[in-house]
């Protein structure tokens, strides 16, 4: 038994704390904690909606220390990653980031994440759930590749919102305004190195900051000092979930069930079903799931994840989707839904049988009003564009910077 367990019999039940915890705990006025990969993790700090508006109107930080990070290096690193993910990793230039998914042999999504190319033969893969065992499997047969779990070594902070560039500039990151979306740049920071990528999960202007664990707090303090006149604010899972849904991004356990963890047959999803066909590169000779995906592409996909704009203002949470107003023919189900304060629309992502996408689409929405249950049928319109995609998210330099 470890010493800690002797003094605190509940030590094993308590969650790990991220390097930013001391600052985040002080700002978590509502004590609203949940967990992510064994870390104590904020659902929100003050108010989910308030924090959401920090992302859309000002700037906010989101702790991504609990996210999994793997350093993959060696002469075979690119080839190994190329076998694992559906996208062509060889195309990824140094100091660039790309969004990827990887599948099992049946072409079902194991997880999604990002690959950072840090050097000639050096990559970092990030993802929501631990994936080491799968990566090791993908590395079979490659001699010159090492995989290292660096999740607990790096302090990482997502920094999102329209004023983020201005704040980073104020923090002394010279030239940050010239960093393009999905680019990476390094800055000296208090004797160490701060890596900044122009990435994020909010569909807005934003960056992710990466630094060695022990410098995490110093970085936090410098960022918060620079962000003070910009009302910098930490935000939690709830605000993230709102922002990512407006951006049309998928979430594990919402839009997809990780293939390695599903019990029931085909209760997981393929990239095509998730409307991520653009991530699948059949020009590559081989990658995990290629054959199954090729077959699916020829056959046509049964379901397609679809963005819906729904009439009225009742969120269509967990709604069933029908082809007809009378709700006789079910054609799908909603995976995530909300009222979008930015777009002023009642939005949802839904898995819908592909063959019915061109026809009328209706949602049956259950809602409650002062303890009484109500239901209504609402007309849905398919939206091709993300609900929120401001030009500043792509502009270089970003406006006001």
């Amino acid at each position, binding site marked *: 038994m470890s010493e800690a367990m002797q003094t605190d019999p509940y030590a094993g039940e308590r969650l790990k704390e991220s390097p930013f915890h001391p600052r985040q705990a002080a700002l978590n006025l509502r004590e609203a904690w949940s967990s992510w990969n064994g870390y104590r993790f904020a659902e929100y700090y003050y108010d989910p909606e*308030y924090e959401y508006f920090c992302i859309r109107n000002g700037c906010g930080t989101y702790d991504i220390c609990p996210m999994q990070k793997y350093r993959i290096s060696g002469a075979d690193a690119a080839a190994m990653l190329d076998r694992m993910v559906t996208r062509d990793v060889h195309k990824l230039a140094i100091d660039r980031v790309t969004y990827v998914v990887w599948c099992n042999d049946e072409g079902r999504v194991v997880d999604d994440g990002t690959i950072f190319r840090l050097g000639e033969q050096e990559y970092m893969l990030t993802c929501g759930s631990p994936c080491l065992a799968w990566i090791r499997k993908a590395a079979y047969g490659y001699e010159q590749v090492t995989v290292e779990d660096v999740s607990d070594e790096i302090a990482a902070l997502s920094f999102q919102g329209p004023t983020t560039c201005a704040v980073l500039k104020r923090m002394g990151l010279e030239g940050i305004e010239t960093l393009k979306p999905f680019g990476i740049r390094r800055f000296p920071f208090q004797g160490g190195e701060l890596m900044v990528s122009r990435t994020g999960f909010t569909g807005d202007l934003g960056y992710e900051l990466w630094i060695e664990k022990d410098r995490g707090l110093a970085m936090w303090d410098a960022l918060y000092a620079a962000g003070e006149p910009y009302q910098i604010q930490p935000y939690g899972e709830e605000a993230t979930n709102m922002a990512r849904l407006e951006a049309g991004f998928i979430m594990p356990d919402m839009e997809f069930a990780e293939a390695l963890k599903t019990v029931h047959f085909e209760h997981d999803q393929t990239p095509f079903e998730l409307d991520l066909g653009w991530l699948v590169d059949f020009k590559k000779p081989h990658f995990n799931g290629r054959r199954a995906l090729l077959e699916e592409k020829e056959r046509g996909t049964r379901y397609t994840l679809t963005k819906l704009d729904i009439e009225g203002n009742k969120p269509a949470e967990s709604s069933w989707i029908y082809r007809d107003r009378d709700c006789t023919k079910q054609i799908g189900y909603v995976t995530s839904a909300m009222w979008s304060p930015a777009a002023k629309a009642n939005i949802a992502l839904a898995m819908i049988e592909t063959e019915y996408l061109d026809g009328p689409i209706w949602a049956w929405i259950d809602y409650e009003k002062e303890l009484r249950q109500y239901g209504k049928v609402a007309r849905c319109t398919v939206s091709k564009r993300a609900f929120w995609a401001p030009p500043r998210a792509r502009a270089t330099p970003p406006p006001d910077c």
Partner: protein
Amino acid sequence: MKRYDAIVIGAGHNGLSAAAYLAKAGMEVLVVEKNDYIGGAAVSRELHDGWTYSNCSYVCSMLRQAIHRDLDLSRHGLMLVPYLGTISYGLNGEVMLGYHDEGAAHNELKRFSPHDADAMHRFEADMNRYSQFIRKTLMRTPPDPVAPKIRDIHELLFLGKQFWNLGEREIYEYIRFFTMSASEFLDDYFEHYLVKASMATPGIIGTALGVESPGSAYILLHHVMGDVDGSIGAWGLARGGMGAISHALASAFQSFGGEIRREAPVAQVLVQHGRANGVVLENGDEIYANVVVSNLDAKRTFTKIMDPKDLPPGIVKKAENYKIRGSSGKVNIALSGLPKFINVPDNRYINRGGQAFIGSMETLERAYDCWKRGRWSDDPFIESVIPSAWDPTVAPPGGHWMSNFIQYCPPELEDGPWTPEKRDAFGKTVIDKIERHAPGFSDLIEHMEVRTPYEIEQEVGLTEGNIFQGELTIDQLLFNRPFPGYAQYRMPVKNLYMCGSSTHPGGGVSATCGANAAREILMDLKRPNTVPEDDCYDE
């Protein structure tokens, strides 16, 4: 010579909303605006380098979501951000904080009166219930109860049904609403002077009534019936200032092919054979159109830009007597830093809401007494917000701007009209009151804009500076707005319409008057309706 399908006089936000819906229906529409900027009383202007003021209106809650959504104003650049609670300043340094969290707010109220803390729940439920009814009338044309057409009968039945749904007890209450004072109404709920006074202030904003005057209860309701994202009674800020609302409406209008001409004041509406035929600008240019829509208030429309010979005499008289008394001032201040207020904790969220410098019910009533005598009180009611505390676009980093709305400020002083010296003295009074709550405040001032009703009338064209384009009293509401018999946006001259806040549902940045007017115009022209139905029925 080009002939437009419609000309809208005035690029106030209601003029723009009417124009957008007409243009959306395929009409060729021209908006003519006297100023070199658009927006009327929903405007943002940079008067001091780096600081953007919302010169008139400053907070938003009435803008109908249905319009925002239908015209896709978000894509045209509009973002509304809700704000947190309001701080109320009472007597002798007493401060009541407005916490955002329900539990914390309750605890804070209890500090003043456990009774009132409980009563607040009932108060909020009641206000919410009354709002439900009013909200349902906002995007509908009031029926004419005296000379009803079939459509009016439908509307009367609709209103009757909604009204009936309130329940018997509430119906009595509701009728009393229009005739009660804010003070009487609140007596039924609260006992602590500051709780009561802080709840009473929405009852006097923009009106020439006092907390004790019959009718102020309705004004109170008018200010809490709006919402931000469905949260009734909540207020928010437009990112970039209130002008962002007008700009988004203008952008939507232009996306439908609409045209806006600035610095084009209208001298007169052209009438030929009893029909509106276009406008003459002050520079003598004549522009023709099949339909003319006035965004100006009713008094201005009929007494300033129309030839009385073109009008039935009765209407000119009605317009002259239209109740449109100016009663508010506005002081916009650029600050080099955030003021520190006595007895307000250094809490990073606390400045992200409103601040109400009140005193007591008596302070409010005394200030009203001054107004009646053509003076301003040396202890006026000030409702403030510091938008820069959560809008990064309106002040340079570290700098702030403070919007101060002052009730009361007379349109004319007892000793004659406003002069720049008197205006500045009025501004000084406001600063002095704030300074009493925030020592050192005046040292932070970089620039300020003081606006009495006189400036508001000169710049925005609101007669007497009345912020609502006419009092919101029962004799000027619903089917009486602006005048009985003319509440359906049609004016006594054929092809002439009104679309400003002088029409139903009245003042505030709601865009509904314009949208409702457009619907009536399209109906007369037998064109398909482009105006959406309100989505508040979903509540």
